[in-house]
């Protein structure tokens, strides 16, 4: 049976070169926020210090800030390959600069031109600079862990990482639904940038605003827990199929890991890198508005 043989296919790993990104801006410093106010985007790419897994996505006055360093490649096609093949949990080794030898871990990716987000120990991250080179042991696309039902698609995640993720619980029988603990479940109408784009190389922005915002565009639509979303959290989006581009499909669920913080831009917000997508019958969501623990530095042995 095709699905069976595909499920048993052995993964390969590829070593990729990543270059620490320098932030880039256009001729003018300003972007325009959802209320029409100009702002200067801080934290959008490159090395961001002072932000860690477990921090609120609303904690900083920043735009798309990710906890770690963004990795790119100077050749556009190689950069797309870097973003497509790198998976959450892949090991990263710094090869040049003052942090040469340091270990990092891929914790997400972002779309458009392609960026891989890697977390490092804070002191080693602080010693790095743009243009430093790293090697990523990329592995995961096309893999499927044992005990996952055939209708559930797994993407963007290192095959070994599930073993250290307590919020992901396969069924005892192996063919029942996988149960996943999430901070919140967001309706598809709050999905923004990333719709219609390939989930193997893009993230999906969720149009969430701080819970105390007097101009919260999402109102109550985001549901319980949405105001408490933290970097590394698992978040579900209902009625979204992320197999072949991200799009609307009734009765489906996509679960992703929150990889960057909020954005003032309309149509943008905290972004998830999708890792699981399938009909609700194979993906059982446990809502943990309070007490949810997502991907942590401890799980990645980076504390």
């Amino acid at each position, binding site marked *: 049976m095709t699905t069976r043989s595909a499920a048993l296919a052995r993964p390969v790993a590829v070593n990729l070169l990543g270059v620490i990104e320098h932030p880039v801006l256009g001729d003018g410093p300003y972007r*325009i*926020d*959802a*209320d*029409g106010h100009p702002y200067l985007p801080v934290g959008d790419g490159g090395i961001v210090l002072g932000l860690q897994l477990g921090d609120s996505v609303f904690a900083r006055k920043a735009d798309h800030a990710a906890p770690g360093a963004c990795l790119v490649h100077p050749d556009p096609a190689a950069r797309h390959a870097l973003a497509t093949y790198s998976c959450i949990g892949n090991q990263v080794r710094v090869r040049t600069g003052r942090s040469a030898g340091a270990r990092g871990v891929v914790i997400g990716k972002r779309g458009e031109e392609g960026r891989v987000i890697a977390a490092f120990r804070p002191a080693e991250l602080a010693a790095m600079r743009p243009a430093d080179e790293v090697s990523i042991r990329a592995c995961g696309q096309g893999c499927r862990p044992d005990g996952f039902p055939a209708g559930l698609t797994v993407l963007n995640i290192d095959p070994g990482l599930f073993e250290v993720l307590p919020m992901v619980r396969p069924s005892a029988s192996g063919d029942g639904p996988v149960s996943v603990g999430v901070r919140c479940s967001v*309706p*598809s*109408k*709050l*999905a*923004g*940038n*990333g*719709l*219609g*784009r390939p989930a193997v190389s893009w993230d999906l*922005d969720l*149009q969430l605003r701080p819970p105390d915002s007097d101009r919260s*565009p*999402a*109102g109550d*639509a985001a549901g319980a827990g949405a105001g408490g979303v933290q970097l590394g959290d698992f978040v579900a989006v209902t*009625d979204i*199929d992320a*197999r*072949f*581009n*991200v*799009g*609307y*499909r*009734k*009765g*489906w669920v996509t679960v992703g890991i929150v990889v960057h913080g909020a954005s003032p*831009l*309309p*149509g*943008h917000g905290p972004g998830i890198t999708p890792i699981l997508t399938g009909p609700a019958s194979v993906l059982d969501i446990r809502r943990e508005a309070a007490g949810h623990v997502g991907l942590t530095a401890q799980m990645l042995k980076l504390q």
Partner: protein
Amino acid sequence: MKISSNSGQLVSQVLTGEVWPPLADSRAYRVGPDGQPFALPGMGGVTLGAGCGSPATGYASDHLEPGASVRHRDPAANMALQFLTCVGNPVRVETGPAAGAVGHVIGQHAYVLADFAEPVLAGLTTGDAVTVTACGQGLALTGHDAIVVKNCAPGLLAQMPGGTRPDGRLEVHVAARVPAEAIGAGAGMSSEYANTDLMGAYPGLGDDLSLGLEGLRIGDIVSLAAADHRYGRGYRDGYLTIGVISTGQCMMFGHGPGPSSLLTGPAAAFHLVDDPAANLSCWYHPELEGAR
């Protein structure tokens, strides 16, 4: 539309472009909602057989761009062309057998999309030069301070039914009301560039993909629920956006027929009237209605 505006304060700019070719790559295929590979025409060049008033879907096509797709060869000049051009602006063909013919802009889609009468389109091809007389950005409606006008020629506004009501709201006739769940690719982009793809309009595919939008026509004026397009394209409760369907059939997942943004503001500032005749063809190409 019976309404006062600042149209007397606007200037026009003369812009140039050329019919830009469709683009592909060496792998040819893209992937549909269920994983089906496809290689289908529709985006770029001159697309025949679908214009204002035609069904938006039901074609063997992807990212169907009706009529001529226009860009400027210089990247910065192209952005000026894309941002400044408004729906309803005239487009004149300058070279080739169709030289002298005039059509109208029906939207943007990373190309300026120009609809012409079918015999004109038959004589138009990639590389033909066109002139766009761009006018409309900066247009504001008197007495409707909360409503922002986007990409809308003053002439189009004048021909649309509706207008200022006695209660102060703006009456707009719409051929369809689009739910927030339908917003796909284009979310988060500038509302002066390209358009908002609508999901849920894949005729012939699964019911789980449908949001009831299979009946849209090219040129339809539609309302987008909870869409705030004042400073880009985002979700906001209590707002809505009025757009015109400027692109059609998509096979690519997360994409679909797309409205270019025309008016946006608090929902309470609008009075929507459901009107199947709310279509650009009624105002710009009445001679084509029913002929396609």
